[in-house]
C-alpha cells in the first residue's frame, strides 16, 4: 500500500504544489503524493496510459486534488473524463482552486465533484484548508475496496 499513489495533485503552479505538499506532509496525512502539471498528464496517469501504461486501475488514487486553470486539458475536462468512465467514476475529486466564480462552482457540481474549496491567500488558512481536506478524505472517508470498479468494465481506450 505504501508505494501506491495516495493523492494525485493536479496543479500547474510549482509553488502551489510545493505549499500543498508541505501542508499535507506536516499534518502527516499522506506521503505518496503525485503531482500532474497539466490536465493531459493527469488523465494519462488516471487512465494508465502513455508514461503511466504500467499502472493498473486496481489501485486508483484515494483523492484527486484538482486545480481548474490548467494548461492543455482544463480541470473541468479532467473531471468530466473521470466521471464518464466506470473505472474512475468512484475516485473522490476535490477542486482546490483560486476561483470562487459561481459559474465554476455550479459547473463543478454538475460534473459530480465531491467538494469544492478555494485556496486562501493567507498561508495559515491555506495550510488549514489543505489539512482538513486531506484529513477527511484520507482518514475519515471510507474508500471503495481495491478493484471494485475494474472487473465488469470496458478496457481503457
Amino acid at each position, binding site marked *: 500500500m505504501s508505494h501506491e499513489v495516495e493523492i494525485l495533485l493536479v496543479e500547474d503552479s510549482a509553488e502551489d504544489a510545493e505549499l500543498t505538499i508541505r501542508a499535507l506532509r506536516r499534518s502527516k496525512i499522506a506521503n505518496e503524493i503525485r503531482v500532474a502539471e497539466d490536465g493531459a498528464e493527469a488523465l494519462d496517469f488516471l487512465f494508465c496510459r502513455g508514461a503511466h501504461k504500467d499502472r493498473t486501475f486496481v489501485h486508483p488514487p484515494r483523492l484527486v486534488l484538482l486545480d481548474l486553470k490548467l494548461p492543455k486539458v482544463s480541470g473541468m475536462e479532467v473531471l468530466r473524463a473521470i466521471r464518464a468512465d466506470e473505472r474512475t467514476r468512484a475516485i473522490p475529486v476535490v477542486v482546490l482552486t483560486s*476561483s470562487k466564480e459561481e459559474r465554476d462552482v455550479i459547473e463543478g457540481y454538475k460534473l459530480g465533484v465531491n467538494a469544492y474549496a478555494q485556496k486562501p491567500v493567507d498561508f495559515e488558512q*491555506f495550510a488549514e484548508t489543505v489539512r482538513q481536506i486531506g484529513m477527511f478524505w484520507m482518514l475519515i472517508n471510507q474508500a471503495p475496496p481495491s478493484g471494485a470498479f475494474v472487473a465488469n468494465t470496458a478496457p481503457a481506450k
Partner: protein
Amino acid sequence: MTWYSKMTAAGALLILACIGMLSFSSEVHSEYDRAWVHHTYVVVETLQMVRIDITQAETGQRGFILTGQDRHLEMYAAGVKQVRQDMRELADLIADNPREQEAIQRLDALIAARLAELGEGIEVRKLGGLLAGVETVTNASSGEKRMGQIAAQIAEMRQTEDKLLSSRLDTAEASTQKIKVVIVYGNALAILILLVKGFVIHWEIGKRKLAEKNLMQSNERLERRTAELSQTNTELESFTYSVAHDLRAPLRHIAGYSNMLVQDYGPQLDAEGLRCLGKISTGAHQMGRLVDDLLSLSKIGRQKLSIQDTALDELVADAVEELALEYAGREIEWRIGELFSAQCDPALMKQVFVNLLSNAVKYSGKREHAVIEVGQATQNDERVIFVRDNGAGFDMRYVGKLFGVFQRLHKARDFEGTGVGLAIAQRIIRKHGGRIWAEGEVDHGATFFFSIGLPANQPSAPTEALIVEEVIHVA
C-alpha cells in the same frame, strides 16, 4: 394643432358658413323678387283683359242695336260682367300701390261712364227701335272719345307697371350679381385659406417628421451609448475580477514561502531578519484581504438582486451573531429597535448590516462602554434605517470620502481595515435604488442612514459605471 392653425381653420369654416347663409338668403330674396315680377305680369294681363272685355261689351251693344237679337244682348251682358270682375281683380292686385290706386279710380270712372253710355244706347234701341238706336251709336262721338280715354288710361297704367317691372328686374339682377360676387370671392378666399392651411399642415408634418427622426436618432445614439456603457461596465467588471483573481496566486506564494522560511530557517535568522519576514507576511496578508474585498465588490456589481419581503430585524440579529468574533471580550451595549420589513435581497442586505455593524464595532473599539444602536426613522417622508455608535466618529469635512473604495478616514495603525466595507454597503443600497449617507463628529460617534428604495428604481447604468471606474482606478 397650434393656436394659429386653429384660427385659420376656424376662419375658413366661418367664411364657408357665411357663403352658405348668403346663398340661402339670396335664394329667398330672389324668390321674393320673382313673385313681384309675376305680380306685375298679372296686373298687365288684367289691364289687357279690361280692354278686351269692355270692347266685347261695346261689340255686343252694337250688335243688339243693329239686329235686336238677344244673342248680342247676352254678349253685352257677359262683357259688362267680365269688365266689372276685371276691375275688382285689378283693385285687389294693386292695393299695395297708392299711386296706381289713383289711376285705377280714374279708369274705374271712365269705364263706369262708358258702361252707362252703352246701357243708355240699349235702352234707346229697346224703346225707340232700330233707327233711334243706330243714331245713338253713330251720333255719339263721346263714345269714341271715352274708349280712347280708357285705352290711354290702360296704356298709362301699363307703362307704370312696365317701369315697376323693369326696376324690380334690375333689383333682382343686382342682388343676384352681388351674391354671385360674394360667393365667388368668398369661395376663392376659403379655398385660398384652405390651401394655405394645407400647406402649413404639410410643413408642420414635415417638421414633425424631422423632429421624430431626430428623436429616433438620438434614441438610437442613447441606446448605443447605453449598450457601450453596459459593455464597458461588464468588461471593467471582468477586468477587476481577473486582476484581483490573478493577484491571489503570487500573494499566496509570498505568504506561503515567508512562512516556510520562518518555519524552516527561523532559528538561523536574527531578530531583524525575523522582523523583515514578519513585515512581508503582514503585507501579503493585508493585500490578500484587499484583493478579497475587491472581488466581493466586483461580485456585487455583477450579481442580480433576488428581491423578497424581508424582516430587517432578523437580518440585524444574524449580522450581530456573525460579528461575534470581532467583538469577543468587549463590553458593547446593543440597542436594537423594531425595524420594518422591506422588499430587498436578504443576503445582500445582511451584508450591509454586517459591514455597518462591523464598522461600528471597530470604531467604538476604544470606548470602555461602547453603545451601538440600530433603529428606524422617517426623513422627508422616507423610511430609513440608522446604525449609530459612540466611537471615534469622523470629521464631516471628509464625509464625501467615506464611501469611496479604499478610502479611509483613520490611520491603519488606529483601526485596521481595507476601506471597502462602506463602498460595498453603498453599492448594495444603490443597487436597491436607495441612498446611504452618514453624519458624525470626531470623538462623538457616527450615524449611518440608509433607505432601501423600491426594487423598481434600480440605479441606471451611468451610476454603476462611475462606481466601477472608481474600483478600476484603484485596482
